[in-house]
């Protein structure tokens, strides 16, 4: 879509979005107004009946057609695509939702919106178990060609994105602010990579700073564009609750990974499973099958190992172990053990977990 083709109504929406006019009011305006030429619209008394006097004042103050055009042009130059409900790129999945975003700013590969999407969400501070399953499931599902959708936040979000990128899969990040305000800042590079290899999505204009209330709100987009939502690990009061609510409201399928019943961080998925709101998922295969995809054949990666490395792999097959256990049971000298573990890790066969724990990477 370029500037010339963009019609009046899209420009109108962009202007509204830049001035932070709430979604609901925009929807009402879309119904009420016939002429969306900005100049005419602003003088239309129907506008005043919908918008508050402050909002009207703001709109009138900020109205500058030349500046608006150049802002749009600049965004396009920066590779930001503007997708309104009138564009053909607007995801069908969102179109009929009650609180649909009227406009989406996007950076990256727009065609991902047409593909099969799985939302992977969860706590910002996962346990070692949460990290492990998030990564394992995201990788497997992404490998099969399903798009992983999440929110580019700390914890499960970031792990899911990272995992998808690592296996060369597709991923969409829906962020809670404008593109100039990636939150948290630690994920700036991850966001950049997603914009290059996947898709970065936001309903807010680039200069919009994320606010407290925008985080739960963007969760409706995450749930909306996905066919199903997978909750890997989340506490009972987690922000993931919002995503769950939206998913149930929109009739999306819910998946949850069961966890230890004594772990606070697995409370939400366990609750959802026991109450029947979500399907308990124990293998990534189930999700891959759900999407009707084929998972990548498992290759036996454990070939060409040295005697010591094989010994370590054998011990780890029974579960994660810490360093001292490995040292005691393998009888491998500490220095050799250390170097074997690193080599195995570099080859992507095992993983080092916090506090000297090691686990097989399957």
């Amino acid at each position, binding site marked *: 879509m370029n500037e010339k083709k963009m019609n009046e109504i899209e420009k109108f929406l962009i202007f509204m979005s830049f001035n932070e006019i709430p979604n609901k009011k925009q929807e009402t305006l879309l119904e009420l107004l016939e002429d969306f030429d900005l100049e005419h619209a602003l003088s239309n008394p129907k506008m005043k009946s919908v918008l508050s006097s402050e909002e009207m004042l703001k709109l009138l103050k900020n109205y500058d057609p030349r500046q608006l055009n150049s802002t749009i042009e600049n965004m396009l130059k920066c590779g930001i695509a503007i997708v309104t409900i009138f564009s053909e790129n607007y995801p069908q999945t969102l179109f009929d939702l009650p609180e649909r975003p009227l406009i989406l700013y996007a950076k990256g590969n727009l065609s991902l919106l047409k593909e099969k999407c799985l939302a992977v969400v969860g706590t*910002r*501070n996962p*346990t*070692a178990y949460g*990290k492990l399953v998030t990564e394992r499931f995201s990788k497997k599902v992404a490998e099969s060609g399903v798009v992983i959708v999440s929110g580019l936040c*700390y*914890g499960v979000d*970031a*792990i899911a994105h*990272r995992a998808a990128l690592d296996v060369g899969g597709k991923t969409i990040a829906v962020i809670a602010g404008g593109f100039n305000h990636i939150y*948290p800042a*630690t994920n700036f590079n991850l966001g950049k990579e997603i914009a290059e290899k996947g898709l970065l999505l936001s309903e807010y204009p680039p200069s919009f700073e994320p606010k407290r209330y925008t985080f739960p709100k963007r969760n409706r987009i995450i749930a909306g564009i996905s066919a199903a939502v997978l909750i890997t690990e989340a506490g009972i009061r987690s922000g993931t609750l919002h995503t769950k609510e939206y998913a149930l409201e929109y009739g999306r399928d819910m998946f949850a990974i069961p966890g230890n019943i004594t*772990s*606070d*961080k697995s409370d939400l998925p366990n609750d959802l499973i026991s109450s029947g709101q979500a399907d308990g998922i124990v293998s990534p295969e189930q999700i891959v099958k759900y999407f009707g995809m084929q998972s990548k054949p498992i290759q036996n990666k454990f070939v060409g190992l040295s005697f010591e490395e094989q010994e370590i792999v054998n011990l780890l097959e029974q579960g994660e172990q*810490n*360093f*001292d256990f490995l*040292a005691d049971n393998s009888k491998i000298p*500490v*220095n*050799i053990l*250390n*170097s*074997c*573990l*690193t*080599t195995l*890790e*570099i*080859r*992507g066969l095992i993983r*080092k*977990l*916090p*506090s*000297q*724990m090691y686990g097989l990477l399957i």
Partner: protein
Amino acid sequence: MLSKVLSYGLAGIDGFVVNIETDIVGGVPRFDIVGLGDTAVKEAKDRVKAAIRNSGFEYPTKHYTINLAPADIKKEGPLYDLGIAVGIMTASNQIKNKKFVDYIFVGELSLDGSLKKVRGVLPILISARALGNKKVIIPHENAEEAKFIDGMKIYAFRNLKEVVEFLQDGYDEDIPSLKTKNFDEVSKALCNKLDFENVKGQTQAKRALEIAAAGGHNVLMIGPPGSGKSMLAKCFSGILPDLTFEEALEVTKIHSIAGELDLSKGIITERPFRSPHHTASAVSLTGGGTNSKPGEISLAHNGVLYLDEFPEYSRQLIETLRQPLEDGNITVARANQTVTYPSSFTLIASMNPCPCGNFGAKNRECKCTPVQIHKYLSKISGPIMDRIDIQVEVDNISYGELNSNQKAESSASIKTRVDRARQVQIARFAGTQTFSNAKMSVPQMKKFCTLSKDCQFLMEQAFTNLKLSARAHDRILKVARTIADLEGQSEILPQHIAEAISYRGLDRKYWGI
């Protein structure tokens, strides 16, 4: 009458000659001390006066002028008392013998005339020997620390009377000076350290400390509270190579100046282990103050500086460690003077993985938010992390391990390997300013840490697959060099590189992602 007596002052850890000139003239009774003395020096007037009288000598009512030359250097402390008293008694003709012009007098006087111990006797003796002043009179309480200095005539006395008698009638070169003691015997006798054989489990941490001891690397231990980080650190000094006599003298010198010397032992034979609390002020760590004293990092010279709960130290404090870690000494500039103290230590720091300490723990749950964890970890800046070669994790050990009767390897047997690796390094760096792998310069690294094709391939893979940061590269090379030295290999092999990589936990950012 005029008299001149020698004494010594201290600037940093080095001594300088002080000439105590005493002039007595008739007239209005007065007592002036000139030559930039601090309050303790000025107050010598009252101590000296009482001491002379109470020792049964005369203190004529006259006009006294004492000059401490050179007059432009600050003099501190009560160590000039004895010199001033002897000067007065010479000038007032109570000591007629003038042959002791080349003697150095050091000591504080009590009002009853007894000689009391002073700080910094050992550094004064070492400087005096270097400057050619070979005869010294010191307080008896300081005798032990003087016993390790040979080639000098050192006399130790209990009070002013003894000193005067010695100078007066005796003045006998044949009176035996202090006998020197043999360092090696003392150092063997005083051994009493925590042993690694009592530390259960923690094999990885022990191995990391062995490498650190062998190559002089700094270590960061990360683990939950109660996992034994402090215990490991305390054992660490036991596997370091023994202090050589020169090193011991240097250490003793610093402790002597700081007044922290155990006077019954005289010389420090064990590598110091200092663990300042995290509420310590910057000055207590670096040294300085109005009366310049070495700080904790200098007291840890040739030994171990252990900083428990590393991120709890103020950021400013941690940053002050940068220069000493790099240069092995610290220069403290104050209004009055600038002093340099040696501070070449091995840093052992320990920290929790997060504010609550349970991040990643097996049986406990971490309640910290990612922001809290991030803030906690970011308290330690990149430049400091750059100077810490080894990061190792320490985990709580299970009850089974705790209760097992299995004895671990003893410190002594670890130490033999460490000593061997140090020998290799001494031979390697012969004729340079470097003593350990950790202190290698960039050209030296190029020369001694060449990598084979296999090693380079491994490094490359590690960087891409494990997402190591660039700063890890040099650290890994240095640690790999030490690991190779421990094995007696002249070349760095892939397994050495692989092991070295395993000590870069923090660089790999598995925290929080």
